């Protein structure tokens, strides 16, 4: 019964999300689409965070995907839908290639290198001449699906479902154990036979793949791309704040955070055109200081397995209790 309830909630939410276009008008739908875009990014970021690596490069792979999609569409005349898949593949490939170097880095070094990535990609695209459209960017003949707002919404929802699926795979399979082990103690993980580089690479490529897909979807939906619009640091900032507020290391956390902050973002943007992002900076600081596990972490009691392990340790005595 409890198991059923656990599945029922997400299913109902998904059904409501799918049926939403029939219930609301064009403006709420456009807002909802934006929220979904950020939600998928927040989910993708969380996948990598579970390994203990914080990426500040969301906007980088998002923008890379956006440009991959546009260029595949214009230069290779791929269909828009295929070009979105190509965007994911391109982002994942670039991530894998860069990962050969930057996944040797840990913690701070990794984070700052990824922070630089968006800037690097932007400079490359900016100086790409006619091929990338340079500083002026590129305009597509027409947005995907002729710009029909319902279909655009479903497309973004598809990205979120993909991201949720991916997040669940990383949560329910042995990938979770490997990534959690790496996060908690890399040396211990290594001595237990976990191939650290391999797992980090999988997580990094998967999260970049989703970011690339979302970038492709966003640019195909808007119909244009400029280096400044697709490498906008907001695509790093907002997903990060959303996942943190909702609660990291989980699937519902980023979803919850994105719904709360996404709607708030739209409201704030109307009220305060300049500098409304200050709120996100403050939210990040407050969440880290006062509830590092986020809203979902507050609601979620200790995992039964963790509690069990702790009681076992207490009973076990010996070296177990001295470590606990």
């Amino acid at each position, binding site marked *: 019964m409890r198991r059923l309830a656990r599945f029922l909630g997400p299913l109902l939410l998904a059904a409501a999300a799918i049926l939403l276009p029939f219930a609301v008008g064009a403006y709420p739908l456009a807002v909802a689409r934006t929220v979904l875009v950020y939600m998928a990014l927040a989910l993708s970021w969380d996948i990598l*965070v579970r390994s*203990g690596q*914080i990426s*500040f490069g969301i906007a980088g792979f998002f923008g890379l995907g956006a440009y991959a999609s546009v260029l595949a569409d214009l230069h290779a005349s791929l269909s828009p839908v295929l070009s979105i898949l190509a965007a994911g593949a391109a982002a994942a490939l670039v991530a894998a290639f860069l990962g050969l*170097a*930057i996944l*040797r*880095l840990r*913690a*701070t*070094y990794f*984070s*700052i*290198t990824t*922070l*630089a990535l968006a*800037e*690097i990609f932007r*400079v*490359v695209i*900016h*100086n790409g001449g006619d091929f990338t459209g340079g500083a002026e960017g590129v305009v597509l003949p027409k947005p995907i699906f002729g710009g029909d707002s319902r279909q655009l919404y479903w497309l973004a929802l598809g990205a979120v479902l993909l991201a949720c699926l991916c997040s669940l795979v990383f949560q329910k399979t042995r990938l979770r154990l490997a990534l959690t082990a790496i996060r908690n103690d890399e040396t211990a993980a290594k001595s237990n036979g976990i191939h650290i580089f391999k797992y980090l690479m999988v997580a990094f490529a998967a999260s970049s793949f989703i970011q690339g897909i979302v970038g492709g979807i966003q640019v195909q939906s808007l119909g244009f791309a400029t280096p400044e619009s697709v490498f906008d640091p907001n695509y790093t*900032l907002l997903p*990060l*704040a959303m996942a*943190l507020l909702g609660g990291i290391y989980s699937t519902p956390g980023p979803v919850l955070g994105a719904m709360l902050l996404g709607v708030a973002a739209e409201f704030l943007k109307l009220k*305060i055109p*300049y*500098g*409304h*992002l*200050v709120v*996100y*900076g*403050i*939210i*990040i*600081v407050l969440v*880290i*200081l006062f509830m*590092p596990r986020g809203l979902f972490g507050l609601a979620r009691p200790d995992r039964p397995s963790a509690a069990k392990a702790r009681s076992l340790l207490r009973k076990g005595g010996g070296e177990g209790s001295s470590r606990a």
Partner: protein
Amino acid sequence: MSLRRSAMLAAAGGALAAAAILVWKPTVLVYGVQRAGLYAAVAIPMALVLGIVHIVNLAHGELLMVAAYLTYFGATLLGVDPYVALAPTAVVMAALGLAIYNLAIKHTLKAPELNQLILTFGLGIALSQGVNLVFSSQSFKLSLGYVSASATIGDTSFGVYDFAFVAAAFAIGYGLRLFLTRTRFGKAALAVGQNPRGAAIVGIDVNRTYGIVFALAVALVGAVGSMFLTKQAIFPDVGGPYTMKSFCLVAMAGVGNITGIIYCSLVLGVAEAAINGLRGLRGWSDIVFFAIIVATILARSRAESRR
């Protein structure tokens, strides 16, 4: 031995590159050195915090920007030169640094390192967007006569004012080194940096040391921010790149090597100036630092695996 040899090789290579650039375009060398001065002056305080408090402050560049804004409004309201406002700015920034340490950073010291990173990232956003909220993204600039002073050697003339940043870098770098090795507090701070627990056991107040070191670093960035204003236009996002470039330099010099940053910044500054000097490549100079980071990382990891 091999370390000494590679250091000598690096020095020889650097001298050769400098000679080649001198023949090709002397101004590139001059502007590169000037750039390096600014980079080093901004990066050294970050190295101080990283070396002693063991925190990477991702709001570093934003603090530079805030100090520049403070100086701008202080200097224009009172009608004084930014250099007059430098000391008061540094004092205000020190207070801000102390507040940031006590209200935020102190509480994450025991948390995983990543929490500190996200915290300072959020702080940086809050600072730059806060400024954006109050002053909008409009840029401010002072027009000062003395910054356009120039000199002519042979038939090349170049601006000389920016050598002030080189002087500042040397003053901050060697001043800090003296402070850390000669004064009682400095020695205590170094001890805390090496081993906080050991330092606490011998009676050093670790938390207070962290707070003062952080405030000192912010004050230094503040002073550099005042100088920064004399030359550059300021806007909310002006500080961001300096965070990354500073970190690049700190990583390159190695944590704890404060004066080494000055020499590493020469590589970055001259390389950027050289690329800016090539007509077709002008737009690419912003990724030099990234290439340097990746090269440093790869070299380090190779050296480590050989050990």
